[in-house]
């Protein structure tokens, strides 16, 4: 990770974030008192086995206060998360600008000579820090949250990660993890870069050969419908590679930080499928093909 740049803007944003975090904790401490009251009232009501109008009104009042508190807490937390996203985007931009200019900081390794291990840990980090979609009570998960498909006219933006079906030198096709460079709206084609090596040529692909990766994780507790269900056929990134292969969902994630367990199609196993392997939400997309994909990378 980049060390803290001596840039006032970033420093300023970090200070704001720090403030927000302190405010969050203040809010939580304030509402804790009410939550403890609720807990005590619950215990009393349950031990007496009677629900009286007095208790009900009191509980209703406590619940209403707790609701207001929870909303306030949610708001501040969202602001803090937004601020983090802002800072990260800013840092990312700097990194790219620095790379283009040609000056590398100590930790910033140019893509050309990136070792596989570093790449893998970067991918893993990206998967972990994919923002979790936490909607307000009436909000539905948006497109590109978990398994929710993109809108029909969605165009991936530069630097978005996608799964791209490219044709190899020996005419075999593979879905690779790639990054969008640009989109040509007249020809309706994407220019993408393989995430692995910058040296490789840029691929120009039509829209149907490009599947944008999710931009949010779905929360299994609140939006289980935004997850791929068990037995669904998907394209998943094979662990320690940068290629997508067909797989069946074995188990969807149970907690927000969990991964999918998938069974990759694999003829080297007797039943045709690999044992369950973990793949992060970020690297599982819908599969629309009906023929098998290429060999393993």
């Amino acid at each position: 990770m980049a060390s803290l740049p001596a840039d006032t803007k970033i420093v300023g944003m970090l200070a704001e974030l720090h403030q927000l975090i302190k405010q969050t904790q203040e809010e939580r401490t304030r509402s804790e008192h009410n939550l403890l009251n609720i807990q005590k009232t619950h215990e009393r009501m349950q031990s007496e086995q009677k629900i009286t109008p007095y208790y009900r009104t009191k509980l209703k009042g406590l619940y209403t206060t707790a609701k207001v508190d929870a909303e306030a807490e949610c708001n501040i937390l969202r602001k803090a998360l937004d601020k983090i996203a802002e800072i990260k985007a800013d840092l990312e931009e700097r990194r790219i600008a620095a790379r283009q200019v040609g000056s590398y900081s100590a930790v910033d390794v140019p893509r050309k000579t990136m070792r596989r291990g570093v790449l893998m840990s970067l991918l893993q980090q990206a998967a972990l820090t994919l923002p979790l979609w936490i909607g307000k009570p009436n909000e539905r998960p948006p497109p590109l949250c978990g398994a929710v498909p993109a809108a029909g006219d969605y165009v991936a933006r530069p630097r978005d990660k996608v799964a791209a079906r490219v044709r190899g030198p020996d005419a075999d096709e593979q879905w690779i993890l790639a990054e969008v460079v640009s989109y040509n709206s007249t020809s309706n084609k994407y220019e993408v870069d393989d995430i692995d090596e910058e040296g490789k040529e840029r691929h120009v692909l039509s829209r149907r050969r490009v599947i944008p990766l999710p931009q949010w994780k779905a929360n299994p507790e609140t939006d289980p419908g935004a997850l791929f269900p068990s037995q669904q056929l998907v394209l998943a990134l094979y662990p320690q590679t940068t290629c997508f292969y067909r797989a069946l969902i074995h188990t969807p994630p149970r907690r927000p930080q969990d991964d999918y367990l998938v069974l990759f199609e694999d003829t080297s196993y007797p039943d045709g499928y690999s044992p369950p392997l973990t793949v992060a939400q970020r690297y599982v997309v819908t599969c629309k093909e009906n023929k098998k994909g290429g060999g393993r990378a």
Partner: protein
Amino acid sequence: MGEPRECPLQFHDFRPVEHARQCPRFTAILSRSTDEGIGAGELDTLQLELETLLAAASRRLRVLEAETQVLTDWQDRKGDKKFGKLAEPGIGATAGPSKLVTPSGSKPKKGKSEGKGAHGHGAGGSGHGPGRPKTKLPPPKITEYEFPEESTDTPRAPKNDTPSRFWASVEPYCADITPEDIRQLEEIFNSTEDDSEYYKVPPLGRHYSLRWAQEDLQEEHKEGNRAAAVGSKKGVQGNPAEVESMLRRGEGGSGSAETGEDGCPFGPLTQRLVQALVEENIISPMDESPMPDPVTKAGGDEISATSPRSHGKPFRLAREEMQKQEVRRSVRAKDVEVLEVYRRIMQARQKKRTPSKKERDAAWRILRERENLLKQLDS
């Protein structure tokens, strides 16, 4: 958290996320001063932790909304529920208010010392209604509510809650009187004032035989006129005066008998019957003029006579009852004190020492006070 059977509320665990344990980075940053700031490298972990907190908070919010809705629905339903459908859950060991049963408002809390002082209560309450041997009440029972949440309850073997239902149905008859009840009595009485107009009997008017006869004749005339108009014959004009005379003639003997007796409405048969009965002293001689408003006058007097009287009586009774209730309540409190003192004396005796003079005095004093209260009650 488990679902209590009586109510549809799910008592969720609303404890906040223990950020010290689950969000170490968050906690660490909190303890830093603003100068130290946050490292850019910590952003990722911080993001994850904040997401955890946000997920917990928004889950809490949703659950709170659902529970509040359940509470509101439950309250609305309870207002509609008729009395008698509820099963009274048993008394817990500790004091607790009894369940709301009528829509008109809450009943006062029943002291749980009722269970202990059942005998004293029974003695004092015998003049007030059937005593409630609450000591016999079985342990908590399921209610008979149908709530949306009940469908998630696992099927349970049906318990015998007939006794609790019985006591629930008996309760309003034996419950303490409240000012609410007095207000209701007042309302009822005020509404009866307005009923007096219903007691007025409208005047008799013409006897139906005469009226129908006249109407029939008029019908015939109309028919005749119509036929005449069709056949262009000269129709007989119905003349009300003529009709009357025709009717009178038609009535014949009975009619003359009537007019002869100044328009007495009773027919000859009835007259003879009445006379015979009067002779035999079965009924008193009746006033044979059409009954003007005997009922209203006499009845009105009666009612107005009873109304202020009865206006007073139930209220007085109710108020007396309330006073008695107060006394009874203090008796119950005294019972508790007596038991307390008794226990102390027993302890002293156990320790093989005679109870001190202070304790003995306290015991006598309390006993005497209790006696006084009881005497007050009985008077």
